[in-house]
């Protein structure tokens, strides 16, 4: 096959539907032109650069979902991808759980006022612990994974996966950096432009830990991205002596990265969210999954707990 014919094949490969131009790999194997490599690079960059934002976000979501599902599919592969995916969801949801303010009101709240109270309460600087369960179903197989979530105010987070195959397995944020500690591996990202060629690595950390970023994002998006309503008063699950009026938030925007539905049980007196269920939705690729958060109490932990050095095994 001559060079001209091969170049024609390249053009068809780049700019037409591949199925219309079936060809064996060997037949184009001898294209050897530096222009071709340059053109391929330009093609790759343009594909990424001009990709619609929604597709890019969907792609990121798919990656996070696959981090989650990988362990569900193959238990022997270890828990690490799952953990990050879990925290992504956990962190997104956790913001709603970190309630610490005490507002007493005898007048009924609207759903909007109730969620506003929850949102404001997360700013209280106290460390609260939540038991988190992640239920997933992929290709018909159910799985449940658990972690302890420590939250201190809006910025400090640590999710500890105690039953991880490779330990320690902790991801978190200390207000300045997002970080992850898995076994002996510690990676951090401070969000600043990398100075020494670590851009790609930092971007990967950002991608994996973006759940931390999404906390504030989800928080601020709830009023604009969800339809809110108050459900009938109901005894708090596990604390039947207390009656709470759950808040149900149903996704109303087209943002596929947000959970489909969130149900929150705020404390009737303080407004602290004591339990929450997050339904991430159901589709062909992701399967159904939900997360359950149960408030376990407050605990004094040192500030260092929210740094990676505290958790690394060689400290």
């Amino acid at each position: 096959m001559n060079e001209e014919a091969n170049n024609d094949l390249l053009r068809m490969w780049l700019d037409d539907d591949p199925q219309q131009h079936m060809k064996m790999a060997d037949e184009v194997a001898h294209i050897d032109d530096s222009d071709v490599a340059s053109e391929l690079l330009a093609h790759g960059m343009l594909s990424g650069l001009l990709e619609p934002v929604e597709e890019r976000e969907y792609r990121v979501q798919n990656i996070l979902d696959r981090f989650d599902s990988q362990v569900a599919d193959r238990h022997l592969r270890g828990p690490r991808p799952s953990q990050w995916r879990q925290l992504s969801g956990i962190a997104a949801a956790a913001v709603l759980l970190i309630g610490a303010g005490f507002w007493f009101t005898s007048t009924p709240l609207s759903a909007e006022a109730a969620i506003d109270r929850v949102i404001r309460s997360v700013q209280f600087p106290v460390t609260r612990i939540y038991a988190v369960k992640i239920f997933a179903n992929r290709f018909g197989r159910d799985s449940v994974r658990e972690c302890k979530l420590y939250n201190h105010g809006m910025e400090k987070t640590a999710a500890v996966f105690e039953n991880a195959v490779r330990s320690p397995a902790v991801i978190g944020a200390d207000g300045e950096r997002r970080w992850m500690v898995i076994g002996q591996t510690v990676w951090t990202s401070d969000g600043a432009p990398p100075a020494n060629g670590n851009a790609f690595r930092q971007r990967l950390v950002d991608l994996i830990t973006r759940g931390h970023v999404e906390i504030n994002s989800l928080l601020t998006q709830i009023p604009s991205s969800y339809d809110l309503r108050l459900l009938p008063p109901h005894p708090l699950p596990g604390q039947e002596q207390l009656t709470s009026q759950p808040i149900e938030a149903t996704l109303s925007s087209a943002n596929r990265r947000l959970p489909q539905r969130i149900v929150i049980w705020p404390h009737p007196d303080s407004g602290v969210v004591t339990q929450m269920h997050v339904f991430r939705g159901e589709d062909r690729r992701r399967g159904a999954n939900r997360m359950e958060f149960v408030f376990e109490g407050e605990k004094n932990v040192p500030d260092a707990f929210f740094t990676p050095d505290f958790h690394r095994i060689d400290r």
Partner: protein
Amino acid sequence: MTYIRSCVRDPGLAEDIFQETLLTGWSKLDEFDQSRPLAPWLRGIAMNLCRNAWRREARSVLVFSDRMAEMAESTLGKIEQHDGDEWGEKLNVMRTCLDGLTPKSRELIRCRYEDNHNAARIARDTSANPSAIRKRLQRVRLLLAECLERNLVEGAGA
């Protein structure tokens, strides 16, 4: 993703390989020498996955050879070697190069990549010959590649 898109035509397949690359990289993180740059290591993983995909897809779609992948890798590696700029800045340079195109060329690139229309569809919409559209796309892409290289070299020399 740029590298994978350079080697795999089908966007869905490219996305799958991209995801698989990150997942594989993540599962082998302990094997990664953190004193070395991450991008080439991940591209090595991606290249292997691309090869596997080519073998699977060889009888159903037009695919490229190892030689092509190596050329793409080499070109990308060369671009990355320019000091003092991260990938986002290189994309910004590409944006600048795009802005420097003629309106007609910009529109062609927009149709191809933003609207994701193939050459046949663009030809139909513009009453042109598909072959001519493909040639024009080739020329514009080469112009952009030259512009990118020139600006990166000038930037490095500045």
